[in-house]
């Protein structure tokens, strides 16, 4: 099973190609091929995970990434650059593959109903499969080159999917924004890759770890530089400050796509990158501190933005940014396993939240939470599953998020950096508040828009089934990965200090939860306030929270630093280089040639050449007068000449 792990990414690729070329002749445009391939991936990666847990099929080699199984095929060679396509299977990549294929499978099933009757159904499924392939390609990769290939493909697939309904300008713009923003981060990744290869001559992850990092051949400074450059890529992909601006707009894509992007693919890639190369980051404390603070800032600012958003998907999008920041914070604090743990549990409940939101939007045809309300009566399945996901994300004891969030808080507490811990705790409080707010406003209370409420209906089983499955995961996965199959058994990490903090961490996390949810309950549950009134009462705060400073800054910067220089350079090129210099040289040489032609014509030809002719002519005309034909005149001239001659001879010889 593990020997054929390469099948897991290859099958979705195959599905994508088949759907593109044969889809139009197949049932459902070939959507079932994508679904089956993803299902196969779920089964096989589940098999690998079980096998790993039971200790079968492993080549035992110890390293920071634990025990792993590696296989590779040569891809191509240029000079001494040998590139390979390979698989690296360890606890982390196996679990990640399971998450990716599972979420992808469920999203595809859900989309059968959600996207039914919409244009370009086949293309939608082809892109979803390609997206899944790209993510799996990087998850399974044993080398950084393949990782980068998957990384970029993930980017382009999200571009295609976010802008899927490209007839709407907002969708087209959001897709482009996502691509360019993440591409800016990727420049760092690119340079990091160049530096890495130039320093060690290979891009194979286990070799880099074993032979260069753990032996100290690669100096800590260089490790730190490479790690931070690669981290730039993660900042873009995982929507960290300052490149977080694309993710809230990415909700322009179809809702199931958002579920996929926000849970298992795309944004997960950045966190996965840091986790995968943790040995590189861990060399330098400075590097980890940068990661931690970027994560902390992201977690906090995005949570603040989420407080006032009224678009249900936008709240969830801000919440994703915030949770990703949480994971980065944890990674930066040495909580390498905790971060990855949260990535896993978050994938389930965030996918569920988006699918639930999709179900609601499908029913009431609006994204605005203030036009919803009381939907629990109409949509029991959505209500219950969304409720489970909400409990999970706010870290209600026993639900998935509780376990992973607690581990994160413990690892942050372990660094004894009070500021970071306060940010983490405060973010937990904010999360509890804004998620409860959405939940109360959408599902409880009285319907605010009776007309929409009357039309609302529960979604069909194709949409219900994935939600139920994910709800089970959102409830159980945390417990499961802590007690039944403890992650610590297959993902080694730093142990020890976690347990001493347990009581502090527990009280903080439960306290934040109670405070946040209670506050939301008191504001939004009973009185169901008018949002406009609230906004007026809290005007400065409200406006502060609504503003997206980074977006405003970038809009100005892009105009100033990209479009304006582009226009100026293009004008410079056209007017100065081309028209002034090049055409100038042409014009000057033409002028010179005109001058030369004039000189040739006037001085040489007319003056010199014709001048002689004219002179001869004039002389001839003058002399002609002498030609009188009178012999007496001739004799007179002769006599005159002779006398002159004689006069001269007498003067000389006389």
């Amino acid at each position, binding site marked *: 099973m593990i020997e054929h792990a390469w099948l897991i990414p290859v099958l979705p690729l195959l599905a994508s190609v088949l759907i593109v070329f044969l889809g139009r002749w197949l049932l459902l445009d070939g959507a079932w091929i994508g679904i089956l391939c993803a299902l196969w991936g779920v089964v096989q990666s589940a098999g690998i995970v079980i096998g790993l847990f039971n200790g079968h099929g492993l080549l035992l080699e110890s390293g920071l990434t634990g025990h792993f199984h590696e296989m590779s095929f040569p891809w191509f060679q240029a000079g*001494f650059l040998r590139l390979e396509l390979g698989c690296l299977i360890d606890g982390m990549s196996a679990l990640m593959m399971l998450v990716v294929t599972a979420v992808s499978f469920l999203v595809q099933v859900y989309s059968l109903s959600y996207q039914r009757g919409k244009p370009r159904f086949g293309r939608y499924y082809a892109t979803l499969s390609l997206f899944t392939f790209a993510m799996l390609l990087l998850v399974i990769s044993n080398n950084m080159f393949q990782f980068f290939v998957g990384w970029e493909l993930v980017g382009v697939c999200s571009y295609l999917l976010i802008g899927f309904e490209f007839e709407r300008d907002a969708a087209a713009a959001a897709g482009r924004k996502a691509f360019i923003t993440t591409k800016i981060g990727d420049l760092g990744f690119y340079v990091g890759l160049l530096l890495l290869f130039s320093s060690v001559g290979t891009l194979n992850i286990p070799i880099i770890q074993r032979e260069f990092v753990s032996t100290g051949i690669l100096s800590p400074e260089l490790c730190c530089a490479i790690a931070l450059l690669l981290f730039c890529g993660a900042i873009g992909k995982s929507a960290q400050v300052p490149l977080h601006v694309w993710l809230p707009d990415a909700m322009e894509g179809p809702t199931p796509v958002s579920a996929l992007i926000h849970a298992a693919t795309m944004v997960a890639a950045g966190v996965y990158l840091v986790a995968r190369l943790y040995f590189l980051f861990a060399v330098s404390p400075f590097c980890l501190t940068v990661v931690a603070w970027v994560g902390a800032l992201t977690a906090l600012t995005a949570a603040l933005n989420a407080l006032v958003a009224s678009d249900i998907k936008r709240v969830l999008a801000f919440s994703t940014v915030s949770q990703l920041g949480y994971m980065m914070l944890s990674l930066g604090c040495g909580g390498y396993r905790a971060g990855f743990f949260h990535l896993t549990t978050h994938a389930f409940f965030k996918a569920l939240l988006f699918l639930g939101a999709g179900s609601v939007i499908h029913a009431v045809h609006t994204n605005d939470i203030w036009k919803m309300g009381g939907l629990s009566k109409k949509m029991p399945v959505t209500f219950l599953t969304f409720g489970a996901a909400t409990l999970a994300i706010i870290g209600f004891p026993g639900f998935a998020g509780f376990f992973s969030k607690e581990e994160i808080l413990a690892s942050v507490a372990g660094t004894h950096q009070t500021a970071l811990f306060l940010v983490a705790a405060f973010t937990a409080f904010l999360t509890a508040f804004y998620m409860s707010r959405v939940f109360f406003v959408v599902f409880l209370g009285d319907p605010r828009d009776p007309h929409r409420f009357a039309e609302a209906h529960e979604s069909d089983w194709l949409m219900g089934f994935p939600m139920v499955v994910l709800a089970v995961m959102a409830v159980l996965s945390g417990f499961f990965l802590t007690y039944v199959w403890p992650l610590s058994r297959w993902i080694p990490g730093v142990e020890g200090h976690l347990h001493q903090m347990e009581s502090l961490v527990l009280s903080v996390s439960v306290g934040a939860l109670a405070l946040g949810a209670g506050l939301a309950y008191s504001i939004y549950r009973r009185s169901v306030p008018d949002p406009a009134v609230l906004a007026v009462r809290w005007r400065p705060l409200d406006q502060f929270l609504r503003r997206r400073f980074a977006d405003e800054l970038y809009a100005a910067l892009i105009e100033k630093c990209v479009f304006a220089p582009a226009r100026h350079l293009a004008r410079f090129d056209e007017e100065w280089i081309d028209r002034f210099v090049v055409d100038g040289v042409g014009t000057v040489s033409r002028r010179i040639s005109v001058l030369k032609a004039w000189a040739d014509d006037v001085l040489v030809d007319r003056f010199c050449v014709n001048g002689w002719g004219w002179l001869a002519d004039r002389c001839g005309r003058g002399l002609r007068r002498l030609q009188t034909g009178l012999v007496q005149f001739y004799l007179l001239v002769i006599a005159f000449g002779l006398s002159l001659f004689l006069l001269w001879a007498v003067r000389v010889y006389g």
Partner: protein
Amino acid sequence: MGILSAIVFVPLAGALAVLVVPEKKRNVIQAISVMASLVSLALSVWLLARFDVSVAGVQFAEKTGWIPLFNVHYFLGVDGLSILLVALTTLLSFLAVVASLHIELRIREYFFWFLLLETGMLGVFLSLDFFLFYVFWEVMLVPMYFLVGIWGGPKKEYAAIKFFLYTLFGSVFILLGMLGLYFASDPHTFDMIELAGQASRFAFGFQIAAFLAFYLGFAIKIPAFPFHTWLPLAHVEAPTAVSVLLAGVLLKMGVYGLLRISYPILPQATRWFLFPLLIIAVINIVYGAFCAMAQKDMKRMVAYSSINHMGYCLLGMVAVAGSNAAAGLSGAVFQMVTHGLITGSLFLLVGVIYDRAHTRNIDDFGGLGSRLPVFTALMTVQAMASLGLPGLAGFISEFLCFLGAFGTAAYRVFVVVAVIGIVVTAAFLLKLIKDVFLGKFNEKWAGLTDMNARELIAVVPLVILTVYLGLQPHVALRMMEATVSQIAMIFKAG
């Protein structure tokens, strides 16, 4: 007659045959042109199959005396540098002929000049005698002048004369450099291989003078900043098929000339010039990308993107003295090929829309994606290839160029600056896609039809090759490996 002569002169034979056919027999003229370019293509495919990748030196050489008094030879040969460019030239020529089949105006002359141009281009890549090289170099100019000047756009005469004079200006310096080498060598020779063998004989000062003379000639062709401004103009005015050859083949001659002549024959001067070349490469990359960003005319935008992409070639060539020399040089040669495929197809695609809409202004379109799915898909794939998406050919060559230049520690800062070009390239290509294909459909274009068979035949092979070489780059890389390592050796030893 050898295979190389056949490849070079079959198009010429076609050109002469076209001349004797009456203008009215369009089909015959078209058939002859298609056949001539197809035979040349088939022969180069055969050559590709028979090419021995393990040999660094010249293969399939043909050498006979031509002007014994001056030791001039008719000397053709192919090696790892030229083999792919020959294949690229015959392929693009054939596809460009197919794409020209709808031309009505004076088609006899058109195909005559076109096939003559093909002979000229192939001759440049295959000549190993400098004199012969120069003859082909000049032969190429005349057809180009007429093709732009007669079948071009509104400002065709201006563009044609500008192209002609600019290039001629450059070739005067090549001629000077060539004569300089001839008289400096002992015995006097025009044989490039022998000249390279005598490289150590040339004094440093002389090398620099000769290098600068050649550089001036080649830089105009590349085109390297600041000698690039003829290019956007020529592209905008040239008919589609000519743009394809201009971008796909003619631009490669500058880089090819540097690698074939300047590098091996003048290694000391090359080493001295690497740093200026690096700066020029970075300017080409960043400046070209920014200029492209501001363009409204699709052809102008793609033309500026060529300036940007040829900058990557120069960047790869700068690597020659560093630790990643082989990667950089392979990248430069491979970049020539991938740029030919990608930009060639982009010009064909722009031609497709221009033939229908009679405008190339980006702002005039919008939402075409919902009406022209095939056209949109092909254009998107090639734009993605152009911006360096992994899985497509452009990515590998670009990466190798960057990796090569990164091998010299002192160059790293400049490479990082050049990397900015990548994101600007992505930005303007996505802008192009967004403005033309996405958004609300502009009802003005309700009558537009998707691509027809002739257009698909011209474009699809290039798209397939772009994908194929993106997945299997070693197919191309192994062709050049031996030769490229040999060039790198010259600089390692010195």
